[in-house]
């Protein structure tokens, strides 16, 4: 009886956690290279719109995903231009990016409100979906969810076992050391911004092509900001990001179910849950972080690379 209620909820948690997972990993990628990008919300919604428009025009949702990644990375490139080339303040530039991105998506998307585009649909993974309990929760989803399962492992491998990954970490920890080792920290940070932006865009694409198949203005509803918080909650580690994203996915799914069940609790309070949980998650990681290791944030996060004299 209990599992019968639990399985649909957990399945929905994975589904609504997936866009947050992509966005969190994307922001983590950028931050580990030392760039704080608060434009996630803007990049995500621009990605969602690009995915929707391209899928609508071509009929191919994969092209939509590609377009989403490119569009979000292009918006991220503005952040790179302002912060890496013109040494502007990273916090303010990121905020500007969010204002611009949300404006852009709602402006260009308004004629398409309520229209449908071809998107992704769930299919069972052979064998795995027949596993008891786990099979129903994790292996009856769409292709993008399956893609998201591979990402955290791939990132762990990238950051710890490849030259580029280690160089990227150096650019985030101590750029002068990276320079001394013959690396170009500015170029590495560009990689961090563009690569991270691409992933954030895929998160947006998930919202407009898989989570729903239609366009609504403001459809990210703060998920980009939740991703920024989750990077902190995850201590910049991909494994914990998965846990955090599904936790938020679970709360969002639970909230929707409770609303649909016609509960007495006013919907405004239910809608507050993910935002309240974000603060709670930061509280939790602050309390945890105080006990043991010092801050796990990249040491040069948010600090621009000044020109040599």
């Amino acid at each position: 009886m209990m599992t019968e209620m639990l399985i649909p909820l957990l399945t929905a948690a994975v589904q609504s956690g997936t866009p947050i997972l992509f966005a969190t990993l994307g922001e983590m990628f950028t931050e580990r290279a030392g760039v704080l990008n608060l434009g996630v919300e803007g990049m995500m919604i621009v990605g969602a719109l690009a995915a929707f428009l391209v899928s609508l025009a071509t009929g191919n949702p994969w092209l939509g995903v590609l377009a989403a990644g490119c569009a979000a990375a292009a918006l991220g490139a503005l952040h790179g231009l302002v912060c890496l080339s013109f040494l502007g303040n990273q916090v303010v530039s990121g905020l500007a990016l969010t204002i611009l991105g949300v404006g852009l998506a709602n402006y260009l998307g308004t004629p398409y409100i309520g229209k449908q585009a071809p998107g992704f649909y769930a299919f069972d993974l052979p064998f795995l979906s027949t596993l008891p309990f786990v099979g129903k929760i994790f292996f009856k989803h769409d292709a993008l969810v399956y893609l998201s399962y591979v990402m955290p492992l791939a990132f762990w491998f990238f950051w710890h076992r490849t030259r580029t990954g280690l160089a990227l970490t150096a650019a985030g920890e101590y750029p002068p050391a990276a320079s001394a080792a013959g690396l170009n920290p500015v170029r590495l940070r560009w990689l961090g911004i563009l690569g991270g932006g691409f992933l954030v865009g895929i998160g947006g694409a998930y919202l407009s092509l898989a989570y729903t198949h239609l366009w609504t203005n403001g459809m990210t509803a703060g998920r980009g900001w939740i991703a920024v918080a989750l990077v902190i909650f995850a201590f910049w580690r991909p494994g914990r990001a998965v846990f955090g994203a599904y936790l938020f996915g679970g709360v969002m799914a639970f909230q929707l179910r409770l609303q649909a069940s016609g509960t007495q609790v006013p919907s405004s309070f239910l809608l507050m849950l993910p935002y309240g949980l974000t603060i709670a998650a930061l509280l939790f990681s602050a309390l945890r972080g105080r006990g043991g290791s010092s801050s796990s944030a990249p040491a040069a996060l948010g600090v621009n690379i000044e020109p040599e004299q």
Partner: protein
Amino acid sequence: MFGLTVITRQEPPKWGSCLIFPAALALSLGVSCLLLAAQGKPALGGLIILFQGAFGASYAVVDTLLKTVPIFLCSLGVAVAFRMQVWNIGAEGQFALGAVGSTWAALTFPGLPAWLLLPLMFTSSAVLGGLWAMIPAWLKLKLSINEIVTTLMLNYIGILILDYLVYGPWKDPSSYGFPMTKEFPAAAIIPTFADSRLHWGMVLCVVCALLLWVFLTRTRLGYELKASGESLRAARYARMPHGFLVLLVMGLCGALAGWAGLMEASAVVGRLQPSLIVGYGYTAIVVAWLAQLNPGKIALASFFLAALRVGVENLQLELGVPAAFGGIIEGLILLSVLAGQFFNHYRFKRSAS
């Protein structure tokens, strides 16, 4: 890059702000025009409609002045916080809570005379907005929790609290299902000048700005606040009360943003409803940065961005351009000004090689 190297300037060039800002503005408006053209709308014609909307008639200028008030109040607080390197982006939520606080007083004590009710409303909105802003300040001080994320999350929550009240307990039973409270009693409305739509809140703006200026430049605490923004370590070494200052500044931010909410509810709309929330809190961030966190320039920048909003409303009316167009221009201006400030601090020199 391109045979150029970057050199740090000893002091900003004289032409700095008078060249950077117009250039950034021209670039932003140019790109926005291209976007208009992309949707098959007249690019140059759109620009003209935008300017006509903002400055073309006396009622347009009045509209602009009315919108300047909340943007200015929010931005004043934001700028002081940014000076201290406290990244408060929660003016939007503090605005909502301020509007809620003033509405509570107006609906609970409808029988009071104006000389009692208005001060009560100012107090309740300042307290509620201020406390709302002090939550993230306290979390930052006690647990070093990033205030950017918490202030932003509290925006969403604050707006939902307002929604809950106007859809639920405070809903006017005779509003035909529309989410709004009853109209405020006459004593709860901030009076206007003679028969114009301009209200006394504008005078309050000027008073707030002057008081803040005196506080920042003429008091010990104000000096410590500035010092602590420039170098936290030096300020700690000099035993300045950094924690107290952060709480104070955030409380001030919240109170000012709260008053902005009060004025929208009381003087402009006359009741509490969700449409009060139009993003002034985010525009305030753009304004604060454009004005280089300088209280005097904030007045000018607020007026300018208010004009932009009125102009975009005219575009909406005449060409059916979505309201989001304003966000695009704001974002572009902020990005290009940020990039342009590079030339205040650095210059290019041709490489020797």
